[in-house]
């Protein structure tokens, strides 16, 4: 077939291109994902009854800020990677800064603590379930983001998959923060981060097969 004939075929009756596809699709993904995650939280875990008291504690706000900032950086990275020729950009530094800040804070808290109290600061009462709960709460956002990305054109699919996994995980962590009673920075620095990394790794693995175009 002649290329001119194909160009003819493509141009004829092409109509206008869809407007704001990235904002539209990721807007849907965030809405569906957050609503789904929140529904699972209410059904499976419930909101922490002490949440009102928590709002008076800086530890709670540090935890929530950390999770939300990571979600924001993952979102920006995903949206950028959805278009051909756009790199991750500065979004990754936002994530690096938030992670570094949390880890430094965790080390300071540990160094400051009684040796006997350190184990409680690291493991809390829920270390063994925390990462999996975060991963579970991230699932709706993950699925919705994959859908959003499939309608766009990521040229680095592994990275795009990892970015949307990271975004989903961090949003899942933000939602889980409304239930989770743990506030110790060392706990968050390990188990929350592992929880966020689960969908990130899954995303990078399924990125190429799922996001090809």
């Amino acid at each position, binding site marked *: *077939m*002649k*290329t*001119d*004939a*194909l*160009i*003819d*075929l*493509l*141009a*004829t*009756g*092409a*109509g*206008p*291109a*869809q*407007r704001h*596809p*990235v904002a539209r699709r990721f807007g849907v993904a965030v809405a569906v994902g957050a609503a789904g995650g929140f529904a699972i939280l209410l059904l499976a875990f419930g909101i922490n009854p002490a949440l009102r008291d928590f709002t008076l504690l800086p530890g709670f706000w540090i935890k929530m800020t950390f999770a939300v900032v990571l979600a924001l950086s993952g979102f920006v990275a995903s949206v950028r990677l*959805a*278009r*051909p*020729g*756009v*790199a991750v950009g500065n979004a990754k530094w936002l994530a690096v800064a938030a992670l570094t800040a949390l880890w430094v804070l965790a080390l300071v808290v540990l160094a400051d603590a009684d040796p006997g109290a350190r184990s409680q600061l690291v493991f809390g009462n829920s270390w063994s379930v925390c990462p999996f709960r975060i991963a579970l709460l991230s699932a709706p956002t993950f699925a919705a983001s994959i859908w959003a990305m499939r309608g*766009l*054109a990521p*040229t680095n699919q592994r990275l795009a998959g990892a970015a949307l996994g990271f975004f989903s995980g961090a949003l899942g962590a933000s939602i889980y923060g409304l239930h989770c009673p743990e506030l110790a920075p060392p706990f968050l620095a390990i188990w929350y981060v592992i929880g966020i990394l689960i969908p990130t790794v899954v995303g990078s693995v399924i990125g190429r097969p799922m996001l*090809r*175009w």
Partner: protein
Amino acid sequence: MTRVSPSAVTDPTSPANLSDEAFTAREERLRTLMLRAQAGDEAAYRVVLTELSVHLRAYYRRRLTRIAGEAEDLVQETLLAIHNQRHTYDRSRPLTAWCYAIARYKLVDFLRRRGRREALTDSIDDDFSQQLSGDESDATDAHRDMQQLLDALPERQRLSVVYVKIEGRSVAETATLTGMSESAVKVNVHRALKALSAKVRGAK
């Protein structure tokens, strides 16, 4: 990787390396046309696709010298991709960078599929701009027969493409002829081109 200025690239073997000004002027003109095309200007879109196809041809021929016969297939595959993904062009960015990223992705995807990395005769990170010479517009026949691929589409998709895209009928007219709603016709044309793109990939 996706820089726009060709000044950073000095390849003496490259035919007709454009000056900065000429490149910028061309980018600006193509981008303006693309914005009109995005708004629904069919004639502008035709010009954009035709000009991009010339650049793509030079780009692929340069990189696939040992399997040059594949270049035109890739040009067509990339044009399909450009069309199917045209909504992802961000008007605040250079059109050339967007197009180059798609061309590069399709090249890497092709080489990965074929497992023929040794066919790569040049760095794929070269600047797209040096491919803008466009002096090789002859022989635009690809190996594959698009008609056969079209015939293999589901009936509703095939009819929509034939009426709207090949016979140039309006969407409303096609809707009447096929008994589909107008939005169904649009959806079917869109799906057909997506399916065509997938078939083109699978046919390799």
